[in-house]
């Protein structure tokens, strides 16, 4: 998956600085580069397609209006994901859908994905989407950032506002839960 592992262009920072100066072309280039990843990430959190579109739109509105607030110490990708994550959480709160204790979910039983005999790749992808959607919001966000969007642990912990240790915990428990859910899906499919 090239899209998830590719490093953002070194020109991102220059583009944001140009947007701060009112350059519409620079803004549109940033939309083309980052909107798919931002929208994909937001969908994993808010889960509702209409909400995901609203939050994505609000994220890029912030980019247009507040580009001057960008500090080049952070990567543009990290900055945009952080804005998107905060807006997505606000949206979930407004909907009353933030888990009271997002990390207090029960530990799933260890399972092997090899138990899952998912014949078609499409089926496997759909199973993963469904499994991700069933995870607590923070686990889902951590897994999406690191394993789907290709952010490093340090970048993902910055986006989510958690320590690197907390991020590792979210990732480990999230992957464990995914294994269990995928295994259950595979057993159903058999």
């Amino acid at each position: 998956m090239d899209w998830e592992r590719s490093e953002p262009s070194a020109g991102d920072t220059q583009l944001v600085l140009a947007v701060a100066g009112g350059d519409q072309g620079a803004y549109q280039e940033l939309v083309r580069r980052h909107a798919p990843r931002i929208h994909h990430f937001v969908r994993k959190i808010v889960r509702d397609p209409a909400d995901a579109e609203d939050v994505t739109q609000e994220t890029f509105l912030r980019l247009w209006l507040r580009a001057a607030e960008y500090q080049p110490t952070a990567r543009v990708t990290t900055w945009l994901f952080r804005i998107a994550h905060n807006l997505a959480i606000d949206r979930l709160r407004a909907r009353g859908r933030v888990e009271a204790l997002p990390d207090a979910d029960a530990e799933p039983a260890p399972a092997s994905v090899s138990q899952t005999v998912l014949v078609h790749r499409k089926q496997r992808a759909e199973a993963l989407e469904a499994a991700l959607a069933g995870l607590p919001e923070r686990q889902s966000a951590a897994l999406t950032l690191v394993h789907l969007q290709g952010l490093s642990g340090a970048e993902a912990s910055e986006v989510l506002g958690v320590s690197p240790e907390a991020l590792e915990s979210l990732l480990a428990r999230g992957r464990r839960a995914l294994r269990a859910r995928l295994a259950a899906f595979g057993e159903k499919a058999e």
Partner: protein
Amino acid sequence: MSRSMTESRFRYLAEAYGSHIERWPEAERTAARALLADRPELERVLASEAELDAVFEELGAPEVPSSLERRLLDIPKRVVRPRRERAWAWFFPAVGWAAAAAVGLWIGGQLDGSALSTGNGIDDSEAWVELAAGDLAVLEEAP
């Protein structure tokens, strides 16, 4: 960094970050590779995690609905940004006042004393200052 790593830490990192050591925290990669070289059986840990990594990799590239992309691209046309003039707001009035003062000084420098004479006998600059301050007695004292 070449700190040593325990097997449990290796397993935990594999569980969190998956089978690709290059995706693990940079500071721990060297120690992880050294441990793997010493303990080849840990390859099985990575192989186990690789199964889940493969599922992640099967997800297709994300796409933005075209209607959403159009709305995103149109934001600059629909949303007028507040002008960034706060930082400069003080500048233009200050320049105006400074220019007016400079012009006044220049004109003043071009005039000789006779040009200021109004024929009322007040030619003394101090007297003009007193008159400007409202002291009408200056006029009475004028010859």
